[in-house]
């Protein structure tokens, strides 16, 4: 695989990642959100694999496999079990209506691209042009977290943000050292489990996963 072709493939996967971030922003159903998260993980694993192959960085192979196992199989499975037990398959409520959210999203993408452009000019890695996309998907996941009312979609937004950060690390510096990556992966997994426990506690307390109830905590 030539350098330019692999660069183009990484660019394409980056664009796919951005597209998925937008899809998540516009989704109304939790099940689809989880599926999109899994797809995002798959795109991430594929792009890491391509970067590993084309630059000969062997530790990236491990992180690609780690991403595949963790983000495509394990976390979506845990989330599926969670929403089955909580019976919240369908409810995603947004604070702002979806077309407005999308327009704000476009603004964020323009901001991220403008921010990343001077950095990309100086970088020398084959993935340099994807830094803006990585930044944009982090910001979009952030927006997903902000505009959702329920706890589960917010957590999915958080996980998507982690995906974006991971991609930024791959595109900027060909990934973090393996020890750091292992640590982060474990943290995310444990975080998901803890979130699961939180969900049950929130529901027990308020009979719903709507986090607006938490704002009233002081008054009672």
């Amino acid at each position: 695989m030539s350098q330019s072709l692999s660069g183009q493939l990484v660019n394409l996967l980056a664009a796919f990642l951005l597209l998925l971030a937008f899809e998540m922003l516009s989704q109304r159903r939790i099940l689809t959100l989880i599926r999109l998260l899994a797809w995002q993980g798959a795109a991430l694993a594929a792009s890491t694999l391509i970067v590993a192959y084309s630059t000969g960085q062997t530790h990236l192979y491990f992180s690609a496999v780690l991403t595949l196992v963790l983000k495509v199989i394990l976390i979506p499975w845990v989330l599926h079990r969670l929403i089955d037990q909580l019976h919240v398959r369908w409810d995603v409520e947004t604070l702002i209506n979806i077309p407005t959210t999308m327009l704000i999203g476009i603004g964020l993408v323009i901001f991220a691209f403008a921010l990343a452009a001077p950095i990309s000019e100086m970088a020398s890695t084959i993935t340099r042009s994807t830094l803006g996309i990585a930044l944009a998907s982090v910001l979009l996941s952030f927006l997903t977290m902000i505009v959702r009312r329920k706890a589960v979609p917010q957590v999915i937004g958080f996980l998507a943000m982690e995906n974006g950060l991971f991609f930024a690390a791959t595109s900027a510096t060909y990934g973090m050292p393996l020890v750091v990556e292992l640590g982060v992966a474990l943290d995310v997994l444990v975080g998901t489990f803890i979130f699961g426990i939180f969900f049950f506690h929130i529901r027990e307390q308020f009979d719903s996963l709507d986090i607006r109830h938490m704002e009233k905590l002081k008054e009672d």
Partner: protein
Amino acid sequence: MSVAAESAFQILQSAFVVLAAPLLMGWVNMCRAWLQNRSAPSILLPYFTIGKLFHKDAVIAARASPLFRLTPYVLFGCMWLAGGIVPVLAVDLPFAPTADIIALVGVFALARVFSALAAMDIGTSFGGLGARREMLIGFLAEPAMLMTLFTAAFISGSTQLTTIVVSLAHREFAIYPSLAFAAVAFAMVLLAENARIPVDNPTTHLELTMVHEAMILEYSARHLALIEWAAAIKLFAYATIGIALFAPWGIADGGNWAALPVAVGALALKLFLFGAGLALLETLLAKLRLFLVPEFLSGAFLLAVLGMLTHFLVRG
């Protein structure tokens, strides 16, 4: 290449578009029937329908203005013009420099305005309803369409469709993420503009869902035949614009007769795949509620804008 040969090519291409368009429609309907476990009608059914309609006597409402009679011919003429501008079989045709992609969108808009006016002309409630819905969809779809075309224009540095095709067909193989975005956006616009399923159901006569059908309810016989034919040509034109922008391989040069069989073969293969894909998409998707259509089309617009932004970011 001599002017005569190029002109002959142009005439051949225009005739080809007009004659082959119902075949594409028939193929889409056939695929859709198969996918829905029905036995498929003949692929030639659109031709039979058009022929049958031409043999009937036209009934026109008593209060209809000349505009009502004129509209089918305008629609047909606009679509034919579009079919002449788009590089279907060959680039560098004498007709192509007369209009670029922006003018092409304008031609489609002209047809839409006329059909909406004719729908309101009779004064039935269905006509007004259909016209309003059509204008809603049209004004949302048009910016998305323009943005999509601009993305391709930025890559090749020209708004002339032939120049775009030449520069995209003769480059070395490269993956453009921006073109991928633009292609998805274009597919969404195509579905909306041609009254296909997520936006409009072309086979229904239900008041709640119909858009295009509501506008042409008052038409009969040869007028209806022309409108149906124009719809088929529109689908064909959109398909070939898509092919020209995103898969332009195998297209012939103007007046080059030797390359014609290859061009026809490549086009037939691409349209074969396009029709099957469209039918699959229509089977998989559900009809959207009308109030969700703006969301669908704003999604298309967003994708087109993203495509343009990625083009500027991922140039290197």
